């Protein structure tokens, strides 16, 4: 299980939980796990999020999540 840190306004969909433990060894599996545990998150996550594994944004849903990694969700980043 991996602890995924959510931003605070997502806790509305997670019964108030800020950190959600989900199974998975890739960024994509974590997102699927989150949606399975809390279906209300689905539309928000599908709208586009960045999965940050330790200090780097995962470039792919297949990016592996190492044991003990710190995982944060962030808004999808864009630029000018």
């Amino acid at each position: 299980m991996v602890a995924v840190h959510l931003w605070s306004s997502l806790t509305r969909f997670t019964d108030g939980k800020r950190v959600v433990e989900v199974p998975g060894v890739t960024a994509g599996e974590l997102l699927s796990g989150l949606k399975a545990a809390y279906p209300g998150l689905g539309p928000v996550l599908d709208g586009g999020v960045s999965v940050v594994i330790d200090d780097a944004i995962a470039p792919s849903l297949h990016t592996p999540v190492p044991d003990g990694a710190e995982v944060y969700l962030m808004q999808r980043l864009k630029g000018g």
Partner: protein
Amino acid sequence: MAKDEYREFRLVGTRPDRPDGLDKVTGRARYGADMTAPGMLWGAVVRSPHAHARIVKIDTSKAEALEGVKAVVTRADLPTGLTGEDWDLQENTLAGERALYDGHAVAAVAATSALIAQEAARLVEVDYEVLPHVTDVDAAMAPDAPVIREGAADPTVPEGMHPNVVKYFAFDHGDVEAGFAQADLVMERTYKTEATHQGYIEPHACLGQLGSDGKGEMWVCTQGQWFIRRMCAAVVGIEAAQLRVTPSEIGGGFGGKTTIFMEPLSLALSRKAGGRPVKIVMSRSEVLRATGPTASASMDVKIGMKKDGTITAGKATFRMQGGAFPGAPVDMALYCAFAPYKMPAVECEGFDVLANRPKCAAYRAPGSPMGAFAVESLLDEMCRKLGIDPMDMRMKNAVREGDRAAYGPKFGSIGLVEVLEATRAHPNLSIPLGLNQGRGIASGYWFNHGGETSVSMAISEDGTAQVSVGTPDIGGSRASIALMTAETLGIPYEDVRVNVVETGALGVNEPTHGSRATFASGKAAVEAAQHAIKEMCRRAAAEWGIEPEAVEWVDGAAQPAGPNAGKFPPMTIAEIAGKMGSTGGPISGHHESVPGGVGESFGCHVVDVEVDPETGGVKILRYLVVQDAGRAIHPSYVEGQYQGGAAQGIGWALNEGYIYGEDGRLQNPVFLDYRVPVASDLPMIDTVIVEVPNPGHPYGVRGVGETGITPPLPAIANAIQAATGARLTELPMNPPRVLAAIKAAKAG
């Protein structure tokens, strides 16, 4: 070729002439409006004069009857059934039931000349039922504000919020209240920033052609040809691969040319005109009224600080309107606002709000300048109150590798401390100031972005190399990519030609945005070159009859990896290339990925101003930009990014801004009154390139394009307070506002 002092590299870090320089100083370079095609028609767009109005009826008969008119399109000519962002794009391309802002397109015409097209556009009769409008972000959240679009909110918005709030976002960590309790000084202020425009000098222009077979082509000035392809295909209802989009040279973008505006209209008009190509060139007023400016913002910030300058907690609530569609960068603004500081506790909340203004687009570090204006202004005021040197405060709280960012995760390798040290050491900080003069300091941050990237390269018969990239060259990226490719291949810079290619030539590329061209296309070009090197080593190995692993690539030639590999003279790239036809065929390399390892970039700016106490006029005396580039591939163009970003930030701070009248119409849709800095407004802009290499890039590159626009807004506000004692909390800080603030400060 000037070579800067250090260098473990042969080419990286030198300053050769840019490959497209000759074309651009002789007028030969072809931009969006410079292309013509046989049988070409000219398009013109009919735009709403109202901020908000129901479109009762559009009568195109008079326009159609005009001699020379070949097509008129309205929303009825576009497919239905689009959803989400595609629907937003289509609605913004041509209004459906309602015009949502002054300048919103409602119809378009194509004719045999530009003058006939303009005449025909005037003959299109539109009946409007004018509706109440709102253009200010705070007013748009007021209980009695007109609702721009029912049901536009996305699932992030909790029930009960104002219907104009379409996205809601919050993050926090730590105990903010406890942080404030520990502080010796807690201050709270509200800041407002006005919408600005990227102000690229080249108006949008395209030449589109679409046949009844669904196959089309487009020549267009854009930061991203694949974005144009996908968006246009969706809006006009064709298959993406059937549309071939060729990017012209681009006359500036800064984020504003990452999306579509009138481009689909050229295709829709062409389709209706029997496939004749249609050229549409926007006027400057169309650009300002109806392309994608920034959001405007209203921001509350509260910060706690100890006497020694330690920040204990920060709280921010940002409200932004990005026009009549979702997309204001309120999330990015909040992420960046506290990024340069170790924050024991933060609480941030953001609202994306609809208003009757054009759909905002990205602009250089979208959101970051607004957030910095609020936070860096307040921090400066607090330093002033506590008698702390603002550089000391920045150093004391600066984030380092491994520190937790205000927005959550930990930072990897970053160069903020190095930037601050270089700033402190700069001679500009010790120049004495005179009467009515003041110095302001501020930091800025941008993430940077990887994005979908596809690059291919091929070795030519003579041992030179061509690189095909999908990121249009806005500010010298051909030069930086050629430098990295040549460095990797071990050949002269002049032996590499970098081509920006059309959509048919590569896999999908994201635009030149997010400071990514030199990072992402550069990284992919290096990978592609490595791919080719591997093949060239294999060919040499086959020639020598040794194992490929026993061959290494040194200075543009294959050579045995050591004495055990055999004794052969180096085989140069030209020798290998010269006979590639008989050794296995063409040698090429390619790379497709979403590159990870993006390097964030921090900057710190120092500005000296002089304020005329009788008129409120602000003169920039000197300006310093210090920023981490990771590694500067072509230092001149890195400096150029720093200087250009600073100039845009100075404009935003002082005189730029959208001015809407009571009627909701844009009052300053010309450069006469949309006041971008002119040459005589600015001093030389001093730069220091700090290099803390990004471990995620083969040459250490961090994107450098965006951070530079962020610090000027607060740095100038801080300098004005230093000069006059007056604190401005609203942009632009134009002379009437500055004079009023000086008088208010004097009054006590």
